[in-house]
């Protein structure tokens, strides 16, 4: 049915679904709670923007994995390698177009970043397709085997990265006009972080539109809950699985690019290093929930930033504390997805 036909047959005054605002309110509540401890409002704004940027980068890296978890019931410990691979794929662009990074033109700099993202997404999508076919497909349905095999895939791929690009860390330059900061009075906001926030928001809105406004999105949401019934409706869920795995890998590649420019150094293990954070945010958010992953990423990053400033010794355990508190409050995560 066209959505229009469906809408037209229903009365106009029908009630709409209630949005669960409570988890969303955690973000401003956390900010307000931190303000008196931070003290200086301009420092607070700087910390908040930095936290938001960090959160967006974590979201980019984690969003694909939450869909793969939710839809395919696959525990992919190899997800981190797509982050590393995406980061290294920037070299394919930065090599021939090194001059663009040194140019003062913001247009050329942004075009370079966009090209890096496109190439990284293409490379990681392809790698994801191979990974799913060779490593993941034989172990559908067995979590233990998935953990072992995907860890193995991660190690092999990391070694391939070493073989291709060498084992030493590789510095990569942030494009010229993305360096430095916007200064508003006492408030300092790094340009790159602002761009990371914008890209994260665009990806989040795009994913929400796809998941909520398109048939493929409906299928993904339905498949997360009851894949057997989706098949009984005549849809080939296996193809959907593969597509989501590939899309999830490409998103990790995008996150890898953003993470690489943030760190300005490439190492084969950089993806694996952030996987603890990635797992924390998808657990906090609710397995399979993109919205939960988004809120969870921001929460984790803001807490890390605020705590790191207020009481640095607690920074290391702050994320675990956040996860514990959220799970005590909502054991299925902030936005639990109905599960099979």
């Amino acid at each position: 049915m066209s959505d229009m036909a469906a809408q037209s047959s229903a009365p106009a005054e029908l009630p709409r679904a209630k949005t669960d605002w409570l988890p969303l309110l955690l973000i401003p509540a956390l900010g307000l709670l931190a303000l008196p401890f931070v003290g200086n409002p301009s420092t607070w704004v700087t910390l908040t923007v930095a936290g938001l940027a960090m959160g967006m980068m974590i979201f980019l890296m984690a969003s694909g994995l939450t869909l793969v978890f939710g839809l395919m019931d696959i525990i992919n410990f190899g997800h981190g390698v797509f982050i590393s691979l995406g980061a290294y794929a920037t070299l394919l662009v930065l090599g021939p177009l090194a001059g663009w990074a040194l140019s003062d033109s913001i247009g050329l700099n942004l075009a370079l970043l966009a090209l890096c993202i496109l190439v990284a997404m293409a490379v990681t999508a392809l790698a994801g397709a191979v990974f799913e076919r060779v490593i993941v497909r034989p172990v559908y349905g067995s979590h233990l085997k998935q953990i072992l095999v995907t860890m193995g895939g991660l190690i092999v791929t990391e070694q391939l990265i070493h073989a291709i690009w060498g084992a030493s860390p590789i510095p990569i330059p942030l494009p010229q006009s993305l360096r430095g900061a916007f200064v508003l009075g006492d408030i300092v906001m790094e340009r790159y972080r602002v761009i990371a926030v914008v890209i994260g928001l665009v990806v989040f809105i795009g994913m929400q539109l796809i998941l909520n406004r398109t048939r493929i999105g409906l299928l993904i949401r339905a498949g997360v809950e009851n894949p057997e019934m989706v098949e009984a409706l005549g849809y080939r869920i296996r193809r959907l699985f593969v597509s989501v795995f590939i899309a999830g890998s490409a998103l990790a590649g995008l996150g890898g690019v953003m993470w690489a420019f943030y760190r300005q150094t490439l190492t084969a293990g950089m993806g694996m290093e952030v996987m603890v954070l990635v797992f924390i945010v998808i657990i906090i958010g609710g397995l399979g929930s993109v919205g939960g992953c988004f809120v969870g990423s921001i929460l984790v990053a803001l807490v890390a930033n605020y705590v790191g400033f207020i009481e640095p010794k607690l920074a290391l355990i702050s994320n675990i504390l956040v996860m514990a508190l959220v799970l005590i409050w909502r054991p299925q995560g902030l936005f639990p997805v109905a599960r099979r």
Partner: protein
Amino acid sequence: MTEPLLQLSGVHTHIGPYHILHGVDFAVPAGELTMLLGRNGAGKTTTLRTIMGLWQASSGHIRFDGRDITTASTPDIARAGIAYVPEAMGIFTDLTVRENIVLAARSGPVDKNRLDWILGLFPALKRFWNLPAGNLSGGQKQMLAIARAIAEPRRLLLIDEPTKGLAPVMVRSMIEAFRALKSSGETILLVEQNFYAASALGDNVVVMDDGRIVHSGAMSDLVADKDMQQRLLGLSLDAHQ
């Protein structure tokens, strides 16, 4: 003699080490409502799931509309025109009522007249149109599951225990809905424990016990023969009224 729409011949199904169906044979004629009855554990749900390809038959044949679908995949069986309403209803609780129906219309837009007809059968769904299906009551979820199955024309509906756990008033409205579906020419294979509901609806009846067919024939014959009811089902129609 016209070939039935669905024909099961010597179907055996194993689930892991368990042998559940032992050579099931029966036919579902086109345009009629066939009831599949039997005690708990008789193999009724397994039969429906085997027809749907959700469990593969280990031997035997399932023919639908002249085509062998024994080894076909579930999506192919659905695309051939068989709709399935499982016992657990299988509605997508995170999706709204509207989204559940939109998703079921696989081939494209649902005809507005058909949608009006469906909402006429199940008017309660209108009130919850834009709400998550998880908010519905058990009876309303069952209505949605059936509405979803008929969101576009199908050749055969497989429905597993639609009145299970429903209040009597809801059972009566379900019976009315099935009567309307039947009069519209739908072919239905309905699993039911409630013999009162079954006798009110069925043209034909198939009775299973321990993974085997122990009786098949006209529903009117079974309704008229209390001894047979007692022998096959352990209860007579009177006990359900």
